[in-house]
């Protein structure tokens, strides 16, 4: 996977965020402050502009720029978190021109570690981690099993989707929703839902 692949991934995420913007915001209205869709749309709009202006030459440089831009522009908690995720992934890729499936898996694990280091959320706390962790695990397992890329990313995407849906019965223990205590039960976490979009976009781009 080369720079063009990751650029296509980011484009795909930006498009998915745009089309699911209102849905994400509705999820956030139930247990947060109704801005998650708007936050990510603002962030990825800025990312597209930054990429167009800088044309980064490696997957690593591209992802670090994506992360830095999200950190600066999103405005909500998801900004520092996704921003750190993309930056860590980019740093893991160094200045390689091509990234293998195993390296992608390693990069996504570094991203997840970054999210957890910054936000201190564990699985089950009803955050983006509940979609990110099973997706990263599924990809790592697929790599170990020698599964081919398209199938591996399919597994990661469905794990993220399932992880997101599985946040519904949970009580939030991190982020703004945690203030609601038991009242956060019965709703899907918006950040977990957007993480499922990220992995869904990866599957879509790999399937082309």
């Amino acid at each position: 996977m080369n720079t063009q692949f990751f650029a296509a991934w980011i484009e795909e995420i930006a498009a998915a965020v745009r089309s699911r913007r209102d849905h994400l915001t509705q999820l956030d209205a139930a247990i947060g402050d109704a801005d998650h869709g708007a936050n990510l749309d603002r962030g990825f709009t800025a990312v597209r502009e930054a990429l167009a202006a800088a044309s980064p030459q490696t997957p690593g440089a591209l992802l670090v720029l994506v992360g830095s831009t999200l950190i600066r522009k999103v405005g909500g908690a998801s900004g520092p978190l996704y921003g750190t995720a993309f930056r860590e992934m980019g740093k893991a890729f160094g200045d390689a021109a091509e990234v293998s499936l195993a390296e992608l898996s390693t990069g996504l694990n570094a991203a997840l570690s970054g999210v957890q280091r910054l936000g201190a959320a564990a699985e089950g706390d009803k955050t983006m981690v509940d979609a990110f962790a099973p997706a990263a695990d599924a990809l790592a397992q697929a790599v170990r099993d020698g599964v081919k890329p398209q199938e591996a990313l399919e597994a990661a995407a469905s794990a993220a989707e399932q992880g997101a849906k599985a946040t519904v019965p949970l009580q939030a223990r991190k982020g703004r929703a945690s203030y609601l205590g038991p009242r956060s039960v019965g709703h899907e976490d918006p950040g977990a839902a957007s993480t499922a979009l990220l992995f869904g976009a990866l599957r879509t781009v790999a399937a082309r």
Partner: protein
Amino acid sequence: MVGIVLISHSSGLAAEVVALARQIGGARVPLAAAGGTEDGGLGTSPDRVSAAIKEVDQGDGVVLIPDLGSSVLTARLLQSPGEVVIADVPFVEGAISAVVAAGGGASLDGVLAAAEEAWHVRKL
């Protein structure tokens, strides 16, 4: 003097607490509000926080006081051990204690400790 940055979701809230803390703690303390997003909405702008850190940094260290959520995460991204440190304290009460300590010439650790005292002071 140690600098202090108040980071809130809301630019109004950060500004009001700055005004109150300044009135109680003295006008000389380097103190800045970093509230809201760049376009004036509710949220956090790391660029605003970075600018505020620069503004209050006199070389004696800077204490970041976040309210909640993205303010806390942004503060964590911008911390740098021994120089820019986070005070995990009640927003209003901790800010007042920190500003008073800074105005009294306390060190970075002293300001942090004074701010943390706010968890233990009762009002009644």
